[in-house]
């Protein structure tokens, strides 16, 4: 018997709990050459802003032990081009589309959120309050409880769709930040975004990243992400989406056991383009082996 993989995130029903993480799966198109992306629980698209963004000067990525640093600088084609050029393609697939978004200030956050809320074919919104790249204070609101509170409240008041807030790991008490979001009406929390990091070329004495620092992702950060997801899942009642270094089914299962209701696969897509669907298969296989009929029975089952 096939185990049930369906989970609910706010108003959003995912046929399985595996998403692809923002910024690592383009606009879906790029990976549809490898597999049928309808198999995914959902796709979180690259962070969107009102206007197109050029992004940061290269070099933008560097590999580190079991991880990578990136400083893309939220390059994106902007809301209009997304709706015109990318969304029609995405609509053809039987999967949920989650729009990750950001702005340069709170007004922009509200405006893009409203536009996405009104756009057909987008099933949920993920508010990025945690971009680690060189950036305006507003994009970093995830580090300041007061800013975070205000922003989530305002954005929440403007949108009807499921609102996910994506948190930064760069705080002392991530559960506290999550509780703020919950109080202000977020439907779900996703975490973690990348961790600010650096790597230097000892010959040239320059950073190997154009903007000096960038965000660390990949297996290296998984144990940190898992700890944070566990802390947050204990602290809030709304669903948590676990992100950070997940490369296989076993990794994903750790996050479910720690309390995540869904996971998003990021850097792993680069290592093996089939990661996300292999993860779905491995989860299914595990549930069958362990005779667990419904993934929801596994969620938060950590024995402390």
């Amino acid at each position, binding site marked *: 018997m096939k185990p049930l993989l369906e989970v609910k995130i706010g108003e959003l029903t995912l046929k399985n709990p595996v998403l692809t993480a923002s*910024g*690592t*799966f*383009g606009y879906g198109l*790029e*990976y549809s*050459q*490898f597999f049928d992306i309808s198999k995914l629980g959902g796709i979180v698209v*690259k962070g969107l802003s009102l206007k197109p963004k*050029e*992004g940061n*000067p*290269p*070099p*933008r*990525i*560097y*590999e580190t*032990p*079991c*991880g*990578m640093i*990136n400083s*893309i600088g939220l*390059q994106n084609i902007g809301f209009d081009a997304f709706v015109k050029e990318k969304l029609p393609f995405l609509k053809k697939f039987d999967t949920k589309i989650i729009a990750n978004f950001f702005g340069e200030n709170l007004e922009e956050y509200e405006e893009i959120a409203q536009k996405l809320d009104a756009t057909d074919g987008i099933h949920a919104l993920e508010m990025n309050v945690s971009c680690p790249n060189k950036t305006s204070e507003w994009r970093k609101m995830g580090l300041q409880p007061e800013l975070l509170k205000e922003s989530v409240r305002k954005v929440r008041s403007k949108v009807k769709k499921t609102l996910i807030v994506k948190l930064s790991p760069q705080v002392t008490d991530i559960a506290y930040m999550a509780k703020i979001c919950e109080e202000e009406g977020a439907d779900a929390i996703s975490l973690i975004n990348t961790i600010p990091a650096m790597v230097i070329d000892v010959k040239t004495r320059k950073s190997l990243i154009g903007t000096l620092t960038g965000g660390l992702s*990949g*297996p290296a950060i998984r144990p940190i992400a898992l700890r944070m997801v566990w802390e947050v899942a204990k602290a809030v009642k709304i669903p948590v989406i676990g992100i950070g270094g997940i*490369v296989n089914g076993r990794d994903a299962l750790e996050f479910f056991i720690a309390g995540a209701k869904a996971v998003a696969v990021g*850097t792993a*897509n*680069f*290592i*093996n*383009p*089939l990661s996300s669907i292999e993860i779905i298969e491995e989860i299914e296989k595990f549930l069958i082996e362990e005779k667990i009929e419904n993934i929801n029975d596994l969620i938060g089952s950590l024995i402390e």
Partner: protein
Amino acid sequence: MNKIFKAEILKNQALTEDVYCLSINVPFNIEAKPGQFFIIKINERFDPLLGRPFSIFDLEDKTLKFLYRVKGKGTSVLSKLREGQNLQITGPFGKWYPFPKDDYIVIAGGIGIASVFYLMKKFPKRAYLFYGARHRREIFYYKELEEVAKEVFISTECGTLDYKGVITELFRRKGLHLNLPIYSCGPMIMIRELKKLLKNKDVPCYVATEERMACGVGACLGCVIETKEGFKRVCTEGPVFEIGDLIL
């Protein structure tokens, strides 16, 4: 076409201390064009984490070859793999060299030869090849090159073979007057020099570029280079660009 597959190593041969030729056995017929690249995941675990991009050096039936130089951790681990071991390969990716209609010029610097050999093999006996290296030890597959090219000009920086000096200088002397399209791959310094040489000429010049890559398929936006029209992704909008479009 299946763009992700496992391939067995047939041979991983050291040509010099740090340059290797890797032959792998592809499990099915693939169609790949000169200038395109594949991404090789070097190990099963996560250090090195990402696959590494390599140009098609040669493809014949199901045997795919890469010519590579050991630069850092990935290529160093790769160079230690043996016959019979398996690799995860993705590709082919990227824009290829526009097919030459007539005679053409090829300018290769160092390991850049890896990107143009297959072009000359596909369009044989029509290329004026200018191939420069530091030392004659680093001139690879000379015999094969003579077979596929129309004419071969070699330069070595230390003068151990043919012309002593850099390849752009030899090209200036022996090839600049030819009004033929140019295909080139080599270090940035060579490309810059070439751009200068061609400033007043009106021939197309295609350059294969390199940037660090994560996804290889246009999703991560990590591999951009600056062009006249803003940042472009080497993996999908390149690696082959018109030299005039690049801001070097």
